[in-house]
């Protein structure tokens, strides 16, 4: 095993716990090549929460699958880039070593807990499976630890429910079981892919609170993947907004809501109905997200952008660093931000 089970703080000098560098992923299909991830870079440090925000097809989940090494290959291929975990590139490691990282160092929870759990085994057995296989625990020890984990995620009567099957749990409780499984090997990074999308609002609030508490208690780093701008506002430290397989804006959570610096982020924020604001006409983003087999020239967002100029059609916008450590991939980032402040 090359990746030592060292404490999360032991990242190499100046490096980040997890860092993506210029990741490119494509799907090779019969109809052609879909460029799903086109140069994604971000980093994550211990104890912090990064939210990756985007609509369907923006590549947010594929990025997470690439980190976990669970892309369906074929059709998905990592074309180039690096995924550095504690300074070491995971993409160059053989599968056996990646398996050691999976679960123990980086764990993931999925959107739909009902289909992610095996319907024919009791939940306690499923939580314990990881412990028996990976931590070499005996059946009895694994069972004891599974109960502890179920307690940790606040499943009432954990000892009594350990023999229950997934269908005997409600949606919220199932998601807790998933979280318990992900935490079994004490990971340093937790990737949560739309963890509350399938849940009702009152249950969603419970799960988001639980995730925030756990992250604090266990000092985990968390990547929260979501399309919901509301959920993100409460828990994230930083936000990366994705569009057509790229991060178009990256900033700390307060600045992004106060003054978005990319027209896409601005459009998204303006198009959601707000609970605390009574309805007038919603502003919309015209058009549709691009077909990933035919991404528009220049800036991929230009056909939908209200700020579009000739330069946007001709030139690909590189990340523009704005004064306060934020970036925006827009030729007119400064103007967009100033507009947002003025509003």
């Amino acid at each position: 095993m090359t990746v030592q089970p060292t404490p999360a703080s032991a990242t190499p000098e100046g490096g980040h716990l997890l860092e993506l560098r210029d990741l490119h992923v494509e799907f090779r299909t019969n109809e052609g090549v879909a460029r799903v991830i086109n140069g994604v870079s971000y980093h994550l440090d211990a104890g912090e929460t990064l939210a990756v925000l985007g609509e369907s097809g923006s590549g947010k989940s594929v990025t997470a699958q690439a980190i976990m090494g669970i892309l369906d290959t074929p059709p998905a291929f990592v074309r180039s880039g690096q995924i550095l975990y504690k300074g070491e590139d995971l993409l160059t490691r053989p599968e056996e070593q990646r398996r050691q990282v999976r679960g123990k160092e980086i764990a993931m929870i999925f959107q739909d807990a009902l289909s992610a759990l095996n319907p024919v085994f009791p939940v306690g057995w499923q939580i314990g499976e990881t412990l028996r296989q990976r931590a070499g625990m005996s059946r009895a020890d694994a069972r004891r630890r599974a109960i502890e984990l179920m307690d940790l995620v606040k499943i009432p009567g954990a000892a009594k429910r350990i023999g229950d099957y997934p269908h005997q749990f409600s949606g919220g409780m199932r998601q807790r079981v998933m979280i318990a499984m992900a935490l079994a090997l004490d990971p340093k990074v937790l990737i949560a892919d739309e963890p509350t999308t399938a849940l009702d609002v009152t249950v969603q609030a419970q799960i988001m609170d639980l995730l925030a508490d756990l992250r604090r208690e266990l000092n985990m780093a968390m990547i929260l993947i979501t399309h919901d701008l509301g959920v993100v506002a409460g828990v994230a430290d930083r936000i990366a907004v994705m569009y057509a397989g790229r991060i178009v804006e990256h900033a700390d959570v307060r600045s992004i809501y106060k003054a978005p610096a990319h027209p896409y982020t601005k459009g998204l924020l303006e198009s959601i109905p707000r609970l605390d604001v009574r309805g007038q006409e919603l502003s919309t983003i015209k058009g549709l997200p691009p077909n990933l087999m035919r991404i528009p020239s220049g800036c991929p967002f230009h056909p939908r952008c209200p700020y579009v100029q000739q330069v946007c059609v001709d030139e690909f916008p590189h990340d523009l660093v704005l004064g306060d450590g934020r970036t925006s991939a827009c030729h007119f980032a400064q103007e967009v931000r100033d507009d947002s402040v003025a509003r």
Partner: protein
Amino acid sequence: MTASPANPTKVRGETILSVDNLVKHFPITQGVLFQRQIGAVKAVDGVSFELRRGETLGVVGESGCGKSTLARLLMRLETPTSGRATLEGKDLFKASGGELRRLRRNMQMVMQDPYTSLNPRMTVGDIIGEPFEIHPDAAPKGSKQKRVQELLDLVGLNPEHINRYPHQFSGGQRQRIGIARALALKPEVIVCDEPVSALDVSIQAQVINLLKQLQGELGLSYIFIAHDLSVVRHIADRVAVMYLGRIVEIGTEDEIYERATHPYTQALLSAVPVPDPEARDQRNMIRLVGDVPSPADPPSGCHFRTRCWKAQDICAVEDPKTVPRAADPHPSACHFAELRPTTPA
């Protein structure tokens, strides 16, 4: 609650649809040959409301609260266990034959999932034109194609795409096709069951705006069912909050969102994530514990009492009626209805 008299003159604001004590229990049976009923899922358990002409009534609630069953009952896709509903004074559940066909023409539905609610083997023209085959008098002979193209134009699609198939359209465009189909027979009431929940945020706004614009142009009345309270606030004039088959609170948009008196409504509102980190810090959160109980075995008395922080002995015994309360004069089904203090705790 009174049923409105049939009125030939169409006055905005008069009652068009009146629902009185509607109940739908789905039997739970046991046994193979001789099935015995051992219980019932009380999906809709005594719901009453009125819909006025030209208004939007939002129906909100969590999954399992019976809001979709309510929609199916109103469309007569399910037969109610008991209760009454009248559309323009005519009894929805007693009508049959020609009268039922005429009633149905006046009330149409937009479904949640634009991917499964359109037949993949029919062209858009056939999908939107199908209502004219059932109601030939709605489109005079030879005018069908023209009418379908008008409808496509009305919902913001290109009329030349009449021969395309559903898979050639995006989710938002398919939902527009669903809306065009619902509009084909010029109904006065449209039941929208979660019409935007399957769509991405940027597309959702386009469809909401379209629904609002159509309402303005055609004077439609909507029953707008959704779990997203922000969307409902945006589109609804009045809002009904459902919990375990009952309406626990009903009032104008302002009464529900600013002056809610039922603890469940208050908790629901407080759980909605607000996309503004600064506003969040000032909010006073209520966190409900536990899950919604099974509608097959709802708690006695007030259905909400098992999750309610105000629950007292009376709540287990006496079923609170949805009536105007002292705290605010809109109907709320809570013995201890009161406004929430607005200052943060």
